[in-house]
């Protein structure tokens, strides 16, 4: 019995759960051997102590969980201190920018675009998106830059498959018009087809809707303000010069744009867009149709973009200057591979554009680009390319190197 009592005492010593009681037990043991009743008393007291410690531990756990709850509420949801629910909880900002160096005859450096994005979620179904852009860095009288409202629209989720929008928004046409953040495309400068045929970046004011049709199909339709092209001079009937940018824009003749897109296979986008405008000149009865189709494929390391766009202008005025037909196309293969310091991509692009295809004179511009992108971070890109420009007789070509840096966040 004595041996058993000593063993129990030894086990209790090792447990270390009740130091005070333990000390008294030891003291007792030093004076004399405890009786069975005394040992039972010690064990019961220790058991009570253990239960109490367990309860304290549970309470502490609850306090820690509650503290963590509150910290997360404050740091994640309420950065201002958690006292009020403010606009900052539902407002987001982002942006992108790009600076270019153009060699050759151009020989200039330009912070081409700096864009700030602001969005706000009014409710789960009503959202606001906007982009404010500074082009060419410096704005003012006789200065090269512009401040432009590139997007500002409200979007309403009508169902889980249909959204509508109203305001100033980017038109659903081409590859770059809606997605043109610098890290998302090859080449320092945007391709000449989505510059001179599709006047990217192209926004209009109006209403639109997006519908997810299932099986990878989706459609966008929009009724919006139209272009207002010049009817005389070197820029006559050129779409790029006709953008009114929703700035006190003439709205006599709106336009209708529709797009069908297929994205059933990851990395593959096939789309076709049509636009009709009753009067491209807002007064001279020049109806116009734009047709565009493209493929954008990124499968594994392989990259391929191809796009064709064509304008048909009605009436006699465009025909008289050969601009009743305008078209362009490009094909752009590329290859992207990873390195320990980020991704690297190489590409080549061949483009043709003819804004005066309605007559018999040679007015076709051909451009070949080769170059590379280096992404030290997925949202940061350094670019270099060389362009070979083949222009019609009488025009001046400019073969040159282009360097660029861009970012998005």
């Amino acid at each position, binding site marked *: 019995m004595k041996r058993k009592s000593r063993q129990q005492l030894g086990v209790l010593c090792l447990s270390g759960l009740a130091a005070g009681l333990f000390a008294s037990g030891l003291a007792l043991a030093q004076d004399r051997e405890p009786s069975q009743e005394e040992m039972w008393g010690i064990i019961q007291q220790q058991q009570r102590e253990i239960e109490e410690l367990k309860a304290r531990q549970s309470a502490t756990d609850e306090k820690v*969980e509650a503290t*963590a709850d509150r*910290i*997360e509420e404050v*740091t*994640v*949801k309420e950065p201002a201190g958690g006292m009020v629910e403010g606009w900052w909880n539902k407002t*987001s*900002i*982002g942006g992108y920018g790009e600076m270019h160096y153009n060699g050759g005859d151009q020989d200039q450096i330009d912070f081409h675009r700096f864009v700030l*994005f602001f*969005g706000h*979620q009014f*409710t*789960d*179904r009503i*959202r606001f*998106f906007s982009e404010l852009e500074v082009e060419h860095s410096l704005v003012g009288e006789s200065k090269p830059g512009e401040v432009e409202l590139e997007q500002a629209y409200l*979007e309403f*989720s*009508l*169902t*889980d498959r249909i*959204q509508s929008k109203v305001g100033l928004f980017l038109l659903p046409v081409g*590859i770059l018009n*809606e*997605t043109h953040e610098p890290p*998302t495309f090859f080449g320092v400068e945007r391709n000449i087809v989505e510059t001179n045929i599709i006047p990217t970046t192209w926004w209009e004011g109006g209403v639109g809707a997006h519908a*997810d049709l299932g099986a*990878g199909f*989706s459609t966008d339709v929009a009724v919006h303000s139209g272009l207002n092209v010049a009817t005389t001079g070197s820029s006559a009937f050129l779409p790029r010069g006709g953008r009114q940018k929703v700035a006190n824009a003439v709205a006599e003749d709106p336009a209708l744009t529709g797009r069908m897109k297929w*994205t*059933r*296979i*990851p*990395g*593959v*986008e096939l789309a076709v867009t049509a636009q009709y405008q009753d009067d491209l000149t807002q007064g001279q009865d020049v109806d116009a149709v734009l047709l565009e189709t493209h493929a*954008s494929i*990124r*499968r*594994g390391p392989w990259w391929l973009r191809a796009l064709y766009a064509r304008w048909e202008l009605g009436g006699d005025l465009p025909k008289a200057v050969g601009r009743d037909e305008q078209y362009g196309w490009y094909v752009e293969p590329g290859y992207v591979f990873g390195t320990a310091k980020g991704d690297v991509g190489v590409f080549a692009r061949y483009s043709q554009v003819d804004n005066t295809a309605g007559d018999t004179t040679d007015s076709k511009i051909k451009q070949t680009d080769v170059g590379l992108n280096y992404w030290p971070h*997925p*949202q940061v890109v350094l670019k270099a390319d060389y362009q070979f420009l083949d222009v019609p007789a009488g025009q001046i070509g400019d073969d040159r190197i282009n360097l660029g840096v861009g970012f998005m966040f």
Partner: protein
Amino acid sequence: MQLAALALAIVSSPGLGAEVYLAPEKLLAESFGASPPKPSILWIAGDTRDAVERILGHSAGALRVRYWSQEGRTAWILEEIGKTEPITTGIVVDKGAIARISVLVYRESRGWEVRYAFFTDQFKGATLTALRELDRNIDGISGATLSVRALTRLARVALLLDAEVRKAKTSR
């Protein structure tokens, strides 16, 4: 990434519904059968927190994450911002490999294609390499680059956390 509890609160908010593609309860029922396990809590601390933040490229935000675990399978509801809005995502990991990834709530203006099986099926069977990358390439969606990257990061985080849970069980 924010707490599953936050995700649950968001998706159960009155008035919402348009962008809730799959309720968390349904995800759990489909993943664990009629009687899903009770949620457990994993603290995001120490080396785990460092690893999560390296994958996300920013602070993890949450101190803990809720998960469901049964017979070698774990389910996670995580959030990460695509372009500007959080995407609420359910990820089921079975014995260290992605069994399922489902977008529960999508709030971005574009890139809705990421919620479809033809995109998310690419993650099935994916595991984490020694460098904590996915063992396979995920083809993106044109115009939804940031949303695709967000889902890929969440898949990596879920695999990492699943490994932590399994490691903790083994060491018990």
